[in-house]
């Protein structure tokens, strides 16, 4: 691994130069001839019966091409539990319910037409508190399930229950036990580029769908099911990605606006674009879900964890998207963060008339880590052990198999904790209770794929053109993380070309092999593994050509020299040095004998071999191309929610120093150190970018961000009232890369997309306790909450 030329280097993001010159084509710029613009009318109530919808005035507005309601399209259910229709025609169950949609020649006309649609509602009692909604006599959000069978409860039929060992016995045997509650809010992903798509049918009713999805094949599958259900069976679907202005989880599911866009395109026979306003992005896009946890942990007198018991209640909102599946990731820290032999976890997802949720960076991990890592500090205090020491005592080790069945391969958690301790000056600053304090928290996350679908694979196709250009078709997507650079580095390393030779096409279902999606921090790991394997095949093909063609080229050149200079005596060359591809190496575009790397005659630029070896003549010409589909050797979770669902796991620790103003309750972060196990950094600058960015979102999670939902309605749908951090907040963040190459990773790399976010908020809460002695267990930790807690303590 030592002679890596491109992996580990800070290769610039030249492949994305259009992003700095203003020429990148996002969905905003994607235009088709005759394209119309779609807009959606949302519900005025959190729960109501629709008595009538009148679209006549809207239809008559000049420039309007279609107005559709639930009565104009087939009554087909969508979503992972099939609990909603595309346009709601009888009952609305949340404020963002889609009631009607318009397509018009401009977005402004479409918007005006919405105002002309008359909807008469009969309000129904609504339920907003999941605890209330769980009660046996609570009003039902849904009367029936997807198949029309009556429902008796608002509790979703989802199997989130996990148990290992004997928690009750362990509790009895524990020397110290702590129990507390935490709550976490809805968080908007806040992609700077808002949601949007363009749907276009050809005359055969085949669909080209340009969407920001980072799961192009999943989107294709969902749309195919939908089209089949509305009577368009067997139609071809091509999903394309524009440049994507951020994702953070928003582009995992296929949202309702996308089906609406498809319906408008069908109805008008024109390409239709829907693009959200910022207000819609806040109010009509599923956020990270709100959660409540009760966590109980115990340890023995040496400080070894004995058990962990967690009960979670998730406000599912009115419908179901991926938010309801986040317990599958909550289980990661709950079962496997630190060595804990006895674990019990149960998550209950409850329908309410609130907004529904889906994925956000970290999936359920940040929520669960907030519970686990604050509990670690409480328990450490009770046991009289320094929290850093307490974590070290209980840290995971390489070779561990956790209660969930996760097989820990590499695990430099000790180094992460110690690095943070040193950089944050833990021993010097801890325990002063003088308004300043330090806290830490750690994380475990999937870092080698995540088998949530039957296939967790990714395909890569590589071809090398006769001019020495390396074209790559990836079935994956890029949403800004830098894959065009990172995957190019990996391919350059594996093939022997240079990153600048590599041209990658992402995000096209017609060209790429299947991919499970750019999610779960899996892209660099899984696509990287496919890329290494495909790259090695390419290299082999070229070296096979070289075995044939280097001798030809050398002999021709010697002859030419003899012709020019009759006195030239050709050297005796040992052609056995290059008579097998195994004896050759290709690096940095040069082919040379392994035994004699600087051989003056045999060392050949790869372009010469391609020119001479590909276009040879009748029956002899060749192409250099390879494809690899790689599915990681992992397991699906079984009925007990156990299984090694990733090839490897990433660890990391965040340490925070805060200053708390006792007069105002304001928390100032003086320093944040985030040390992460990345296996090997393919591109350290880009890895740090992932850590910084994720840590910053984590700080927002800890201190400022929440979607305020009042009686089901989002009331802070703008950047004035939804507080995302700016450059002026000036929080010094240090990202530390801990390298311990993983045997399963491409050149040792692990995934690092999500981890930086996970431990940040609990580290802040723990630091605040160290500073002023109050626990805020309800995110975000606003000055009001700190002040109230200080007051309650008489401070």
């Amino acid at each position, binding site marked *: 691994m030592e002679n890596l030329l491109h992996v580990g280097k*800070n290769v*610039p*993001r*030249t492949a*994305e*130069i259009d*992003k*700095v*010159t*203003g*020429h*990148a084509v*996002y969905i*905003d*710029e994607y235009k088709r001839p005759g394209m119309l613009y779609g807009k959606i009318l949302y519900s005025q109530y959190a729960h109501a019966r629709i008595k009538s919808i009148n679209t006549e005035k809207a239809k008559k507005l000049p420039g309007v091409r279609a107005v559709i309601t639930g009565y104009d399209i087939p009554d087909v259910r969508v979503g992972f539990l099939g609990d909603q229709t595309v346009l709601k025609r009888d009952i609305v169950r949340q404020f963002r319910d889609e009631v009607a949609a318009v397509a018009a020649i401009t977005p402004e006309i479409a918007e005006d037409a919405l105002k002309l649609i008359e909807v008469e509602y009969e309000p129904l009692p609504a339920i907003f508190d999941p605890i209330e909604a769980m009660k046996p006599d609570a009003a039902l959000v849904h009367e029936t399930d997807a198949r029309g069978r009556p429902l008796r409860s608002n509790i979703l039929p989802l199997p989130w229950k996990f148990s290992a060992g004997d928690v009750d016995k362990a509790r009895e045997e524990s020397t110290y036990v702590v129990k507390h509650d935490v709550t976490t809010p809805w968080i908007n*992903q*806040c*992609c*700077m*580029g*808002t949601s949007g798509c363009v749907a276009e049918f050809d005359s055969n009713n085949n669909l080209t769908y340009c969407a920001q999805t980072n799961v192009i094949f999943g989107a294709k599958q969902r749309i195919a099911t939908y089209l089949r259900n509305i009577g368009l069976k067997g139609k071809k679907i091509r999903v394309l990605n524009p*440049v*994507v*202005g*951020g*994702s*953070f989880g928003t582009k995992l599911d296929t949202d309702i606006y996308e089906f609406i866009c498809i319906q408008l395109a069908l109805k008008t026979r024109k390409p239709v674009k829907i693009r959200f*306003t*910022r207000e819609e992005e806040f109010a009509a896009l599923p956020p990270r879900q709100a959660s409540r946890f009760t966590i109980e942990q115990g340890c023995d007198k040496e400080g070894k964890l004995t058990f962990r018991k967690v009960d979670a209640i998730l406000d599912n909102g009115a419908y179901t998207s991926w938010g309801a599946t986040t317990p599958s990731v909550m289980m990661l820290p709950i079962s496997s963060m630190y060595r804990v032999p006895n674990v019990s976890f149960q998550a209950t997802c409850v329908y309410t008339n609130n907004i529904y949720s889906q994925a956000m960076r970290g999936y359920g991990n940040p929520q669960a880590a907030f519970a686990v890592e604050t509990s670690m500090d409480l328990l450490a205090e009770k046991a009289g052990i320094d929290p850093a020491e307490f974590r070290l005592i209980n840290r995971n080790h390489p070779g561990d198999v956790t209660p969930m069945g996760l097989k820990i391969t590499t695990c430099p958690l000790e180094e992460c904790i110690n690095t943070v301790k040193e950089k944050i000056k833990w021993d010097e600053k801890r325990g002063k209770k003088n308004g300043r304090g330090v806290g830490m928290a750690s994380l475990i996350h999937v870092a080698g794929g995540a088998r949530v679908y039957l296939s967790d694979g990714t395909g890569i196709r590589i071809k090398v053109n006769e001019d020495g250009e390396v074209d790559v078709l990836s079935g994956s997507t890029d*949403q*800004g*993380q*830098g894959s065009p650079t990172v995957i190019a580095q990996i391919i350059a390393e594996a093939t022997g070309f240079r990153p600048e030779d590599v041209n990658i096409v992402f995000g096209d279902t017609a060209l790429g092999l299947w991919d499970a999606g750019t999610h779960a921090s899996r892209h660099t790991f899984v696509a990287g593994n496919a890329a290494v394997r495909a790259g090695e095949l390419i290299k082999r093909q070229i070296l096979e050509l070289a075995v044939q063609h280097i001798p030809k080229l050398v002999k021709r050149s010697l002859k030419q020299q003899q012709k020019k200079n009759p006195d030239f005596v050709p050297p005796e060359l040992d052609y056995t040095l290059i008579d097998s591809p195994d004896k050759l190496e290709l690096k940095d575009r040069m082919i040379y004998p392994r035994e004699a790397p600087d051989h003056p005659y045999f060392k050949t630029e790869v372009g010469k071999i391609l020119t001479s070896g590909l276009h040879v003549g009748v029956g002899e010409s060749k192409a250099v191309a390879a494809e690899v589909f790689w599915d990681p050797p992992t397991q699906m979770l079984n009925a007990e929610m156990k299984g090694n669902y990733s090839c490897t796991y990433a660890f990391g620790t965040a340490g925070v120093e805060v200053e708390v103003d006792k007069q105002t309750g304001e928390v100032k972060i003086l320093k944040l150190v985030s040390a992460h196990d990345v296996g090997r950094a393919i591109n350290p*600058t*880009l890895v*740090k*970018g992932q850590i*910084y*960015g*994720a*840590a*910053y*979102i984590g700080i927002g999670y800890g201190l400022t961000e929440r979607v305020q939902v009042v009686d089901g309605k989002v009331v802070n749908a*703008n*950047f*004035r009232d939804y507080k*995302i951090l*700016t*450059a*002026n907040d*000036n929080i010094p*963040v240090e*990202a530390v890369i801990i390298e311990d190459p993983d045997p399963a990773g491409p050149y040792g790399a692990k995934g690092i997309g999500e981890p930086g976010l996970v431990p940040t908020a609990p580290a802040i809460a723990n630091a605040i306790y160290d500073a002023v002695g109050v626990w805020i267990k309800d995110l975000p930790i606003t000055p009001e909450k700190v002040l109230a807690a200080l007051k309650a303590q008489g401070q």
Partner: protein
Amino acid sequence: MKKEITFTLNNEEVIVEVDPKWTLIHLLREVLELTGTKEGCGVGECGACTVIVDGEAVNSCLYPVMEVEGKTVATIEGVALPDGTLHPIQQAFIENNGVQCGYCTSGMIMSAKALLDKKSDPTEDEIRTGISGNICRCTGYVQIVESIQLAAERMKK
């Protein structure tokens, strides 16, 4: 009622008919097809639409189009040299991961340019204040600030 306005856009004189109700971003994106300027919120809160008018960074989504009459406007499309050579700020963003998804990048670069055009040697605080109206969700601003510092250093030489 459309009116004709004249102004300088990326070093060229432009004479164009506009509806006085338009914002500058509407003219730029929808009429002149300069789509590098992004609309992230439409109400002046995110800074993705930042352009430079007479040396000042402004939110083009709020800027009334009639006010550019006689003024000089610079957008992201005019930052690189006509031969495609990147401006040092653009180059630094590419080298130092100042760009991730790229949606805030045009506005971020315009705010940085407005700052560096006025002050060649800003402090970190001045840089942070200079881009405080530009929201970025990807980077945590760290490598953006570093990119601007790198560009400032190179521009001094």
